[in-house]
């Protein structure tokens, strides 16, 4: 069935016009290069070991962990939108649901791929499932992320099967229908899993009793960062979805979703962001005044080391917190697409900054009185292999966009019955 002529229209959903194949390939080419370079770099790390990175015994976590936490937070849009649509029955968000799933799938699979390079002995990584240490936040993360990745696959498959050619196989169509019935359930499960691993990613650092900069008291077994991470993730998720959709609209020069939807997303994002910032501020105050001093670390001492001064804290809370929260929720600013999007961008940057501070600053700060404040610059292998994930993301999304009906088509007829 391989088409001999240099075209792929038979694969593109009816009623959707897409750019010509050559133009599409031209768009993919640079990203393919980035991806290839990333695969090569990752290969080096797997073959020669992690000496290929610039991490060391003091900076045992580096760029990778920071970006993993980052993209997983941004990928939270997937489960959260599913949650809103299927659990809270917010039908108006339906149009971006597929995008949400694809973005989520890409973020999570990418993060997991990088993690497999990041661990020193990937061949033994499965021990976590066989000999799990139930007290470890990382165990929680590993279980939830791998399970949720499975859920995402199950959510992605029906979208995949809606491809024009694949629909030709009757059994697939049946399968897809069955699966689609499952989707609400999956959304529920996904929500549960996501709440836990987003949280335990925060817990990851919150439990570090040995690192008073990160250590937090908490509720039951979960430190406060557990809940802050959930909040910040669901706050930034929608913003990121908005940015992705907007980017696609820019590239394809066409309206894919009604503008009200953007405002809706922005509002949700903004409100959650506001809640998050409030919670974070309280948490920070408690930590500075009680938690940290109680273990012998004077408040504010962490901010004596440039470049990690107080401005970072300010930026996190005001510049990338309150400001976007306001812009996203305030009707006037939300109406202006430009403002809305830049606010969304600010929100996402804020979350990334938060993850950066927690991962990098925590390790850079001294604990013993005679420790030095440390610096670390990732090696090209680290940067490249992460670039690979981004390349993978863009390519993955582009393909999905081209060959799958990501956005319910304007005619509004239900994609399930339409088609041949």
């Amino acid at each position: 069935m391989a088409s001999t002529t240099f075209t792929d229209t038979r694969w593109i959903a009816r009623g959707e016009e897409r750019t010509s194949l050559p133009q599409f390939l031209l768009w993919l080419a640079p990203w393919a290069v980035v991806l290839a370079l990333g695969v090569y770099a990752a290969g080096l790390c797997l073959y020669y070991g992690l000496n290929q990175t610039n991490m060391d015994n003091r900076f045992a976590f580096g760029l990778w962990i920071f970006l993993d936490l980052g993209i997983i937070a941004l990928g939270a849009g997937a489960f959260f939108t599913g949650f809103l649509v299927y659990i809270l029955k917010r039908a108006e968000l339906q149009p971006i649901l597929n995008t949400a799933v694809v973005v989520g799938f890409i973020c999570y699979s990418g993060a997991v791929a990088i993690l497999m390079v990041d661990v020193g002995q990937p061949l033994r990584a499965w021990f976590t499932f066989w000999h799990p240490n139930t007290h470890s936040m990382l165990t929680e993360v590993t279980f939830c992320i791998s399970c949720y990745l499975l859920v995402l696959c199950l959510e992605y498959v029906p979208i995949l099967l809606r491809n024009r050619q694949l629909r030709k196989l009757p059994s697939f169509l049946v399968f897809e229908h069955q699966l689609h019935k499952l989707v609400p359930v999956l959304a529920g499960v996904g929500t549960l899993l996501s709440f836990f691993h987003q949280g335990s990613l925060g817990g990851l650092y919150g439990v570090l009793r040995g690192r008073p900069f990160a250590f937090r008291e908490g509720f039951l077994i979960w430190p406060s960062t557990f809940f802050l991470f959930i909040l910040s993730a669901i706050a930034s998720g929608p913003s990121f979805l908005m940015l992705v959709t907007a980017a696609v609209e820019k590239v394809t020069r066409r309206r894919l979703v009604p503008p009200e939807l953007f405002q809706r997303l922005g509002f949700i994002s903004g409100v959650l962001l506001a809640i998050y910032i409030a919670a974070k501020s309280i948490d920070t105050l408690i930590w500075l005044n009680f938690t940290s001093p109680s273990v012998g670390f004077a408040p504010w001492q962490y901010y004596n080391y440039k470049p990690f001064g107080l401005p970072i804290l300010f930026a996190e809370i005001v510049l990338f917190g309150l400001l976007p929260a306001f812009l996203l929720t305030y009707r006037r600013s939300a109406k202006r697409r430009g403002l809305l999007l830049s606010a969304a961008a600010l929100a996402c940057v804020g979350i990334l900054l938060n993850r950066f501070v927690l991962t990098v600053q925590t390790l850079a700060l001294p604990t013993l009185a005679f420790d030095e404040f440390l610096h670390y610059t990732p090696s090209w292998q680290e940067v490249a292999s992460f670039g690979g994930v981004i390349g993978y993301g863009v390519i993955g999304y582009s393909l999905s966009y081209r060959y799958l009906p990501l956005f319910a088509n304007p005619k509004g007829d239900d994609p399930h019955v339409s088609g041949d």
Partner: protein
Amino acid sequence: MNARYGMVIDLDRCTGCGACMVACASENNVPSIPQATPRTGLTPMLVRRVSNEMEGSARREVFIPITCMHCERETPCVSVCPQQAVEVDKATGIVMQMPQRCLGCRYCMTACPYHARYFNWWDPAWPAGMEKSLNPGVAVRMRGVVEKCNMCHARLHSAKAKAAAAGRREIDPADYVPACAEACPTAAIRFGNLADQNDPVSQEAHSPDAFRFLTRLGTEPKLYYKSKEAWVRALAESTSANAEVKHG
């Protein structure tokens, strides 16, 4: 009765010669890595040099041997390990690291406030023939795993075997002394059973000059340090004192 092995390190006696570091590496088959730096090297026992930051004749320096503190409560590295590669041994109180179980996620390294854990960034290698000089009691680690002080468990093993062969249940304390304590030319490092009231080490641990690092973290380390110099004892707690003078 269960033992609680620990050490008392008399910093006033330490001349920073580094014998403990070499003896430790030799006992535990720690390779010498050509490309390694102070930040990527393997030094399960590491002597750190600290000064009172004065100039001229007022300058004092102290050498602080740092190794795993074998924390007793809330042991930071144990709770974080996702696959039980770290545990506190009930019988000895030793915090054990199992490199063959480890998947190299390095979470325990970020958890350790003493930076006493080391990652094998490279595969171990020895010049041709030198593998004959490896200690048969210790398995060589491979790249991609975390290692640390296991209190020379190979010596505990041979002490146990010796006792068993002699039909004894308990080991002879003389048979079990970690390499660093054995090697220290000034007997600054002393090893003993903190659970045993009559053990001189457990008594020394309660001397007024004795202190432990970062006790307020509440991890109850089993490595005690000793100094008559107040500025040295002041190093026990966090950086807050001299945070101002340090900057990135």
